[in-house]
């Protein structure tokens, strides 16, 4: 049992690693480098049974240190990455990609492009097939950089166009970039995944060249194909595209429906509610109410005057018509226990009144309807408003007083 305490190579390196970890966490880059220097000889030992081998450790730790160390230069970093590429063939493309990211973050677009091209031409027996996904990513990022080049050319062209020049060379270059970009971007978005930036760029290209059908199809796939992970942005992109294309309200609404399911607090919920409120279909208006209530459940919306005005408008309209009061009742049922404290406290009344009168107006209206004229919020705000002799507050007070019986039916 005394051998458990034996200090051996493995234990020594484990201890070394924990010192490195401490140093990294405390951002002591010099110290981390010091211990890493001692750790690297692990490469000479066989760790094939371990889950993460020393070569991967050294790659990751070394990258961290080089990124942050004050003395570091891009040259050093590049040199290091090149060495890491030779260390593990199974990781080759991953290391290439990370290297490219780092170059991009440092504004070295051309070097990044070169590295991507180089990586694209890499072949290594069966590893090429195994690392197929990474290869697709490499191609996609090259496509992305091609897109940026295209974009630059496009802007130049537009400028020249204004000046009355037509530049054939630039135009041809631009088309060239388009072709290169399109091919690679198209490939990557076929694979289920989250490809927001690739999709956006590809759609941009397609729209420019007038291929709206293709663009629509791409966005549909991205949003609705169940193989792809649920991604709110997919629906946002689709919605924005449809809007640009001037599609019907119906299709716009259907585009936002799933977004509401996934992210009820999304900022587009205001647009959604606005469209729904105006709809002739009862179901849609019902949905609209649900949407705006759901959005206001979130803390981030507490002080959003626009949202409150949407809600206010809708409940006001329902109260006046006295139709579908049960809608409000249903929505209010699950919220009556906590909304008063969450939105309509006396403290909030004071604060809202001080900071944003419009906000307090809308909220007071909603509070008055949902909680009745005797609720703290309404009383305070309307009183303040009347005191300040603001006309709309007087009207508000009258309105709520007049419709109080209806309101009581709701809160009852």
């Amino acid at each position, binding site marked *: 049992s005394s051998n458990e305490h034996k200090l051996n190579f493995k234990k020594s390196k484990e201890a070394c690693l924990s010192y490195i970890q401490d140093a990294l966490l405390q951002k002591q880059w010099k110290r981390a480098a010091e211990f890493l220097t001692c750790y690297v000889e692990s490469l000479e030992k066989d760790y094939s049974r371990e889950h993460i081998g020393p070569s991967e450790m050294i790659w990751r730790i070394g990258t961290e*240190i080089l990124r942050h160390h004050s003395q570091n230069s891009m040259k050093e970093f590049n040199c290091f990455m090149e060495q890491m590429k030779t260390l593990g063939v199974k990781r080759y493309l991953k290391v290439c990609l990370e290297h490219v990211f780092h170059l991009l973050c440092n504004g070295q677009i051309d070097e990044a492009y070169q590295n991507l091209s180089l990586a694209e031409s890499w072949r290594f027996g069966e590893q090429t097939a195994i690392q197929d996904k990474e290869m697709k990513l490499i191609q996609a990022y090259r496509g992305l950089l091609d897109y940026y080049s295209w974009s630059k050319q496009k802007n130049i062209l537009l400028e020249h166009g204004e000046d009355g020049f037509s530049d054939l060379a630039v135009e041809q270059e631009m088309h060239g970039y388009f072709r290169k970009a399109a091919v690679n971007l198209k490939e990557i978005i076929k694979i289920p995944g989250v490809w927001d930036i690739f999709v956006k760029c590809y759609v941009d290209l397609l729209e420019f060249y007038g291929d709206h059908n293709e663009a629509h199809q791409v966005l549909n796939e991205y949003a609705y194909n169940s193989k792809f992970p649920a991604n709110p942005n997919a629906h946002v992109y689709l919605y924005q595209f449809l809007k640009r294309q001037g599609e019907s309200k119906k299709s716009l609404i259907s585009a936002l429906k799933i977004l509401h399911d996934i992210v009820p607090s999304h900022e587009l919920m205001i647009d959604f509610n606005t469209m729904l409120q105006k709809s002739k279909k009862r179901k849609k208006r019902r949905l609209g109410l649900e949407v705006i209530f759901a959005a206001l459940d979130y803390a981030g919306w507490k002080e959003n005057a626009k949202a409150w005005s949407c809600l206010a408008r809708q409940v006001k309209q329902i109260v006046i018509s006295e139709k579908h009061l049960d809608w409000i009742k249903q929505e209010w049922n699950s919220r009556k226990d906590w909304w008063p404290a969450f939105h309509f406290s006396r403290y909030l009344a004071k604060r809202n009144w001080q900071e944003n009168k419009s906000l307090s107006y809308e909220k007071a209206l909603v509070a008055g309807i949902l909680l009745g004229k005797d609720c703290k919020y309404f009383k305070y705000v309307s009183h303040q408003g009347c005191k300040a002799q603001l006309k709309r507050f007087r009207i508000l007070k009258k309105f709520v007083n007049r419709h109080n019986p209806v309101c009581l039916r709701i809160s009852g």
Partner: protein
Amino acid sequence: RDFNERCAQCSEVNWGLTDGGRFYCRSCHNVTERTREVVNTDFITNSRVQTISKGSRKQEKNDGGCEWYICEGFQLVLKKQVEALEALGVCPQMKDEILCNFWRCYLQKSKQAYCKRPAGETIKALSVCESSTDVDSDPERPSLLHLLSLSESEGDLQTDCSFASSASKVSESTSVYSGSVDGSLYLMKNQKEKLNMTMPMTLSFCYMALLWVREPITLSELLRFVVEGHIPYLNVFQHFPEKMKLCGLDLKIFCVESWPVYEEVFNKMHELAAFLDLPRFPDITESCFLHPDMLCMKYLMEANLPDELHNWTCRVVKKIGIGEVDFLTLMPGNKSTRKVKYDVLAAAVIVVVLKLLFLLDDHYEWLLSELAEERNKNNTEGGPYFEFKKWYEVVKHSLDVEQKKLDEERAKYLWRCEKPLFYSVKNKSKVLKRRQMVVNLQNQFGKLSGSVQRAEKPNPSSFQLSWSEENTDGSCFHGHSLKGILQEKCGVLTAMNPDYWLCTVKLCNEKLCGHLAHYREVEFPQSYHFVLGLFSFLLRVQPSYIHDEVCMIEHKLFNKKLCKKLKYNTVLRK
């Protein structure tokens, strides 16, 4: 060296070779006319000594290597180690007389050399028999096992021994797996019977020689010097001559990936002494460094404890008889006597004395310290009274600092060296590439380490903690007096503490479970753990190791009382 004639002048048989190839007597420097014919000087780096090799040893392999045997490798290792010890100040006889003889004896007993044809071995050991000449005079000569060519008078010995000719058969089949001739066979052999050499065992040899000569180096010190790099151990093979190619299974034998453990080296040494049928070792007397009285003095100083405690340690030593010559001196093969770990024993004695005076139950020692503090206020004459609390604070602080340094050093150890190691020629290029990459990375990140240079090897020192009386901050307790915690009874100063607690009521059977007791930190007072930890750091052994010795001493000390009260309270009145 196989020249056995007596010198004309001094009648000694102690020959060496001059540059001119003549024999000369080492004792009186008489040069003879006898010369040796030099046939082969290929791998002889030391031009002073040249010998002939006869036999069918293959000189040149494809890579310029030669055949060599595992024990030749170990011989080189031992040589390096003993030279390092010499550089540390150990007496030169250790190398030329003691260790060399031990080694030869070992080779003979394990039938690797110096014997007639041993039965049942594919590789026959060979060489000349008893020769009183110094085997190690030829440091770089890789082969000891070759039949050296002889003067006519010894010609017949050749017929008795076999050569490398039979060995070459083996080497053909094993050359893939090891650079040495017998690497694979060495590992396959039954360890129990033959007591094969291992790297830790080289240290056992060193320790055995040190003990024989009674040098003032304890085993824990020796091991510490090894770890600090003053004694070659970790990558000794890089000093092997070029022609001795190391690969394959040789790596398993010579490449070390862990630091030697005290217990292992210690036990092996005793096994070795018995195996070699050594006689009783030279006596360890009171004037010896290894005697508990001496070692206690040293450790008391290092632990920053008052010199006055030495009286107490001597009393304990005397009372339980561990200062007796017969107890301390090593009798190899004697199973009834307990093997003595001089350093651990001395440390344990100090721990027992501390328990006697301070009880160390996390309560009493602090009370006593307050009392001493009170007394100190009125203390005008002589030195200050010793206060446990102050001592604890000072020593703990230093200990923590040193322990932290040690832990960091351990995490920063570099295990590999420049000489590349590969299992087979096939992965040689891969190994070299890796090595190159490691060196590159070390350079790159070494630069980023800032101005922190890797500290030079500290000079070997016997003391790890030092306290100077000249410090005015009162951090040295050597001169402090124990009067603060003693009381006068019948004209004799005795401890105020009347109690004592035993570490364990019953000792385990060492032969069954390997230990006398089983130490678990949570079961004992913090102060006790602290004291164990202090000596554990100084000796670089586990606290439980020292705890075992403490238990042993306590049981000897309270033997009578224990027999009476065995089943009852563990707290005894003294």
